[in-house]
């Protein structure tokens, strides 16, 4: 992690968003990741997404686990509170934070070691509880900080930089998230900002557990021939099912598309997802069909990307728990402490 702050000044002609913030206001400290790391592209996509949806930076809480990807929250949204937790356990910390204040936007950033190996259990349970969050896994199939061991998402048969062959089956986080009940599931590639930025915007606007698996090649340890997480491999095998535009607080413009070419999904907050179909007959609102399609294409060697599933009417954990609208951390003493008169009645019942 870095201690170098970026200079705050910027060119006066830099564009501002509806809140008057420039893109620079959504940046963080200087990244200390390797030059060319896919993760830095994802950080840039997060910055752009937050800028474009006019997010108040301090209204977002960013949480991560441990690893290269989990260092990145220091490199974006410097005006947001961040929490670099413990390895594989970010989902539980994010869940607790969310319980304490339902009004903030929660962004979880994790890696494949953090979420598919040590933290698979917590990943699963946060998804099935419907914690309202955007959860991004920066997936490179390798342990970067410890120099090149396979992670649990490495495909069977893929080769490490040292030439070792992975004998274990790779975990497909997208398939898992779909099975576990995530209500927004996408996959993208760190090298495709045009696809990734709208996905992040839509995930941040989604109510419920939103998951994006972002293939993010490790330039230092997993970008060689024989790897299935290298830039070249991902580019060659990337098959987008749709192209996403998201409209927040604006009337959607659909005129330029032929009928049947576009799927329009309105999320609970009024944001409209416009999905231009690339794969014929792909329905991103049908979980079962999405799962079957993905299995089918995966068997054919494709890496399917795009917005793969969305339930626009999803409920979140607070709705299941029927908690009050006010953040729990803002309740007054009188609202949470029942006082001596109630205690007298309790005493009476214990005699």
């Amino acid at each position, binding site marked *: 992690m870095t*201690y170098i702050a970026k200079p705050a000044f910027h060119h006066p002609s830099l564009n501002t968003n509806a809140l008057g913030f420039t893109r620079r206001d959504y940046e963080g400290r200087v990244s200390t990741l390797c030059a060319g790391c896919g993760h830095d592209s994802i950080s840039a996509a997060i910055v752009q997404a937050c800028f474009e949806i006019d997010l108040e930076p301090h209204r977002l809480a960013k949480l991560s686990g441990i690893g290269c990807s989990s260092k990145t929250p220091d490199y974006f949204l410097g005006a947001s509170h961040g929490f670099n937790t413990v390895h594989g356990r970010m989902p539980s910390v994010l869940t607790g*934070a969310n*319980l304490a204040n339902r009004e903030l936007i929660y962004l979880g950033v994790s890696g494949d070691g953090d979420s598919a190996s040590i933290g698979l*259990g917590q990943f699963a349970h946060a998804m099935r509880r419907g914690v309202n969050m955007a959860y991004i896994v920066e997936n490179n199939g390798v342990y970067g900080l410890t120099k090149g061991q396979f992670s649990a998402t490495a495909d069977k048969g893929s080769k490490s930089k040292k030439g070792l062959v992975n004998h274990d089956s790779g975990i497909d986080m997208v398939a898992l998230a779909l099975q576990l009940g995530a209500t927004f599931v996408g996959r993208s590639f760190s090298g495709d900002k045009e696809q990734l930025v709208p996905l992040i915007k839509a995930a941040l606007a989604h109510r419920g557990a939103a998951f994006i698996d972002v293939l993010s090649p490790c330039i230092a340890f997993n970008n060689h021939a024989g790897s299935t997480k290298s830039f070249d491999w991902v580019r060659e095998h990337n098959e987008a099912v749709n192209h996403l535009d998201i409209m927040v607080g604006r009337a959607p413009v659909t005129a330029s598309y032929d009928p049947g070419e576009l799927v329009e999904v309105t999320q609970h907050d009024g944001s409209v997802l416009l999905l231009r179909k690339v794969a014929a007959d792909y329905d991103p609102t049908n979980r079962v069909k999405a799962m079957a399609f993905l299995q089918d294409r995966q068997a054919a060697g494709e890496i399917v990307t795009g917005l793969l599933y969305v339930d626009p009417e999803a409920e979140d954990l607070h709705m299941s*728990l029927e908690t009050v609208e006010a953040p729990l951390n803002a309740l007054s003493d009188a609202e949470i402490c029942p006082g001596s008169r109630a205690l007298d009645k309790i005493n009476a019942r214990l005699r």
Partner: protein
Amino acid sequence: MVKPIAAINDFVVKFANVNGSGSASANGLFVKAILRMGVPVAARNIFPSNIQGLPTWYEIRVSGQGWMGRRGGVDLMVAMNPQTWDRDLAEIEPGGYLFYDSTKPMPATRFRDDITVVGAPLTAICNAAYVEPSKRKVLKNIIYLGVLTYILGIEPEVVEALLREEYASKPALVGANIEALNLGIDHARKTLKPLGLRLERADAVGDRIFVDGNTAAGLGAVYGGATVCAWYPITPSTSLAEAFTDYCKKLRHDPETGKARYAIVQAEDEIASIGMVVGAGWNGSRAFTCTSGPGVSLMQEFIGLSYFAEIPAVIFDVQRGGPSTGMPTRTQQSDILSAAYASHGDTKHVMLLPEGPGECFEFGAQAFDLADRLQTTVFVMLDLDMGMNEWLIPPFQWDDSRPLDRGKIMTAEMLEAGADFGRYLDVDGDGVPYRTLPATHPSKGAYFTRGTSRDRYARYSEEGAVYVDNMERLLRKFDTAKSLVPAPIARKARKATSYGVIYYGSTAPAMDEALAVLEAKGLHLDALRLRAFPFPGEVFDFIASHELVFVVEQNRDAQLRALLINEGGVDPARLVKVLNYDGSPITARFIAGEIGGLMGTTEKATTGEMAK
């Protein structure tokens, strides 16, 4: 022939039952009936980690004088479990009584000649009266309650009134139960004589309440303002989360919308439980988990994060027999060291040591103030004995003028006014920094929380001096804690003495009686009951002012003694171990026997497993 024991309102009854047989409710009625007669009772359930078919015991100390610990020994054994007959029989005091189901004849060799044997053909009476197997099973317990009511002199009207209350929601059952009770009473009146053990109406209960520590601690968490509870089921702590849930349902819903002013999550494991607590604490909610030793083992990494990143968290540890799965349904005080120093690296954690349900409530609420004030993990160390047994205690009290202490939180106004916010900056010398909550201010006060070392302004740093500066501040903070945690309670002996005794937790009620027993023998000790870690200076002053200090605890390795030696640099030779760790609650006779023996009398405890 040994003379039968004669005692009024002062004896021990033990029920030996098979678990899952419905005996618990009859035994509970027995206890409540005695309480309603104004006679203090302490009851302890000794149960297996099992749902049906294994032995279970219920030990009842009747004490007009109000001794609430286990005394040791059994005066009347209600032997309803053939599996444990031999050991149950052996436990009866010479001159004591055995009550059993005499439906099947037993050879004389199965009894003892130094006790009074009282038989009643319970199965025969029950089978003659009832046809359905379910009635036979349950009402047999009420029939023996009827027999005991007569032979011990319990007022039948009191038991009848209790049965009416118990089945108020199922009136059809009231008649059947009262009938069964009278079957027992009538049989006893015709065929049996009252025992030498007698109950007489008294006025020694007052306004006291009868409640278990887990319920009290769960209620304490409600009063302490906890809004987030994340937990994973584990004996003996489960009923604490359930009590919190029940009380929240009654006391914590918005009267207008009906919505919950709390969030309770049954997590996937203990690691996720503490993770949620840390997340909620970081975001400004009062949060807790409840668990037992195995759960604390799993939570280690997060406890270290809470210590180092300085995030409030409350853990109720209802201790059970360890190590490993150990004795899940037996009691011990064996997590003291692992809680005090939980997690890797140099750590120390605040522990509150309640003596029973009263302090479970009090400390259960106070723990949240301390966690917020000190921005760290606070343990509340219960054990199975106080957690799962109902104790007779003074009513809970709450001072309505007491505000919740949320600690040092820097607000938007303070930031606007130009406050120098350093998340780990010690501004007033107490070692406790200010924190901001997420979303406090649009442009000021945000920081990055991490478990890695950092400087006073929360910037990552691996510099040795910066790291040491922070670790030293954490020690200052721990020193501050000494003045905030509940102070120890000292009790001077009637005569000047060079002997002292230190004890804590559920040992307290047995210690009260043991001190009286010792005093009656002319053995005087000053006593100090510890109520928290870190230890304030007066603990070490107490040790320094006595030649020999007994440290009484319920674990094998004298864990609190080790903590005293480590934290206070005490000469180990001055601290004498008195240890009970067989899983059953410590008895007054054991303590008095051990200390009496060490102080020079020859009389040792004659009963209690640890004395054998």
